[in-house]
């Protein structure tokens, strides 16, 4: 019996799960449970409590009620951080998904050496949030960097892209778009699921390529698009490393790369205000939850499930 059959039977209640199996499973999972409790749930609960305190990391926390949450409303640097983060999310995610879908469509046409291209395009998304790539970025977009050399070749005068507040955020957006590999792989898998007969039938009816894409590919792919959208938005809200490394931890120049998470980090570890940082972490959770809820609500109107 294959594993899949076994699973099916399990779902139908056809198989009695032995108690000893349960116990064994528990012990095998125990290290993971321990990690979850100690490293994830513990700090999450603690940060909720700390959100109501003034806590400087060294002396014991002091209860101050809702002061930290009230400060969220009046903190103008936080509002700037929110603007930067929203710009980053709302510009980079659609661009990234468009690239991912575009390349997936190209790759789906049965290219020779597909495995190679797939890996080549996927690679950046493995590296994208690493420190090494962020360091590379500062070189590529620096005053004497690759981009300026290229521009110089065409006679265009470059500038310090990362050290100019007007362009610094754009370099981070480009970095995020460049990591389109992981949604691309998921799109590619989705494209493989679209039955070929639909296209054949449409072609016989004289539908153009564009019509085929709009009427067949897009609707059938919409659940996958939805999945990628939700995932990448959450992911983008949590971006930290790129901004931290590129700006040397300052969020500069002029707070132009001050991501929400970076601001939160600075509050906790540079200003020693862990209470406010904890409150900010929970506020971010609310923002992400709101975005995800909106996404799910909107999904009713554009996501098509072919059941």
């Amino acid at each position, binding site marked *: 019996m294959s594993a899949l059959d076994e699973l099916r039977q399990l779902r139908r209640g056809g198989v009695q799960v032995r108690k000893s199996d349960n116990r064994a499973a528990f012990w095998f999972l125990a290290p993971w449970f321990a990690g979850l409790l100690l490293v994830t749930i513990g700090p999450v609960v603690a940060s909720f409590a700390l959100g109501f305190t003034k806590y400087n990391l*060294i002396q014991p926390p002091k209860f101050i009620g809702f002061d930290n949450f009230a400060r969220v409303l009046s903190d103008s640097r936080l509002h700037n951080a929110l603007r930067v983060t929203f710009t980053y999310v709302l510009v980079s995610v659609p661009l990234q998904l468009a690239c991912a879908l575009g390349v997936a469509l190209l790759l789906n046409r049965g290219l020779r050496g597909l495995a190679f291209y797939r890996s080549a395009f996927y690679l950046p998304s493995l590296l994208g949030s690493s420190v090494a790539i962020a360091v590379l970025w500062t070189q590529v977009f620096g005053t004497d960097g690759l981009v300026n050399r290229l521009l110089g070749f065409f006679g265009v005068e470059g500038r310090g892209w990362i*050290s*100019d507040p007007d362009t610094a955020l754009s370099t981070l957006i480009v970095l995020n778009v460049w990591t389109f590999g992981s949604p691309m792989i998921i799109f590619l898998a989705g494209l493989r699921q679209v039955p070929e007969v639909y296209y054949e039938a449409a072609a016989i009816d004289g539908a153009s390529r564009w019509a085929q894409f709009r009427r067949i590919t897009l609707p059938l792919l919409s659940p996958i698009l939805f999945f990628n959208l939700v995932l990448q938005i959450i992911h983008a809200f949590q971006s930290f490393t790129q901004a931290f490394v590129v700006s040397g*931890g300052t969020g500069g*120049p*002029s707070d132009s790369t001050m991501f929400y998470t970076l601001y939160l980090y600075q509050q906790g*570890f540079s200003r020693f205000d862990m209470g406010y940082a904890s409150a900010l972490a929970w506020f971010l959770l609310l923002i992400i939850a709101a975005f995800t809820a909106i996404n799910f609500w909107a999904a009713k109107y554009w996501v098509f499930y072919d059941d």
Partner: protein
Amino acid sequence: MLRGVRRGTAWAVLLSLTASLLAACGSGTEAGADLTTEKVTLRFTWWGADDRHKRTQQVIEMFQRKHPNITVKGEFKEWNGYWDSLATTMAANDAPDIMQMDELYIASYAERGALLDLNEAKKHLDTANFDQKALATGAIAGKQYGLPVGLGMYSIMVNLDLLAKYNIPVPDDTKWSWDDLRKIGEQVSKAGGGQVFGVQTPGINDAAGLSIRARQQGKAMFDADAKVVLPQEIARDYWQYILDLAKSGVAPPPSVSVEKASAGLNQSATATGTAAFGLWWNTQLTALTAASGAKLKLLRLPGETQGTSPGAYYKPSMFWSVSSRSKYPAESAAFVSFLANDDEAAKVLLTERGVPANQKIRESIAGQLKDTDKAAKEYLDTVPVSDPPRITPNGASTLDTILKRHTEDVLFGRTTPDAAAAAFIREVQSEVDAAR
């Protein structure tokens, strides 16, 4: 076979884990007690560049030869990462035993109870050869939270090779003004043709520059009660000056300045020979000479004779501090004492951390100094100074980054010097208030 190997590894891991747990449960010592004869490990952390790491490691080995039962584990970082990681380890109750501490942070850590009063470990820490005034720079409310390591002074570093190349005479620094600096910078920029500039943009990595401006006019950044008393006009003039430098091409374009300033000493305009004048600590002469390969000279600050008093002062370049939660305060103090007083150690460390605050050591190493170190020492011995400002108060340790942001806002035209001055003063005050 394979299984045997795996099991062996598992046991080894388990044993080492148990061993480290047991070590962590060791009883520890009192600050005033005798040195232990048991095997102990101290953790020692500092910031700096490669040269410092090599010298410090050498001194650690010398100490370990004298105390075979004490192992000192060095942990070193760059300035920025250093403070992030120190805060994190403090929060995790895992702070290193001995820390290199800075004037900017010492009050923030001490007033939160993170540092040991070194007087408790007097028995192991010899401070006889320190000037009382120097010691006082590391004391808060009568408690000695840091032992000053070296002294430094703010200076203008000039690239003599560049001036010679463009046939510009070295300015007379005994009575020059900030205007004189701008004018000579203009000559350099004109001759440099867009490749070399007159003055490296100040105000990005050096909050001390603003403080110096205030001091020259008899004012200060903070008063004794940690209130921000910096007059808004002084801050406004400071940023107006920086803006004028950038606009007139005396300093490099803003984005170049910001990029170079955040890339560290070796990438700075002074080190890359792309600016003739720069504000630096006098003790950085050696490192910058090595990095630039040019002939550099220390000049006095401009504006020292036009105002009411000299802005220059002796700044403790850094302190040695011991964590209040150290399990081995006595041994840590003994190590600090070795760093500060041992002749052999001094011969290795020389003036890399500033001209030694220990007066006996300062004289004993005088004969071994390189030309650049000698010049730094001579600068310290001859340039007129006034009393040092108060220690940066608790909460204001982000002063430098606040200043940098406002400088960027001004340079990129996002605010005016006047608005930046007002916002800066308000922001620093609120940081100090928030830490209370």
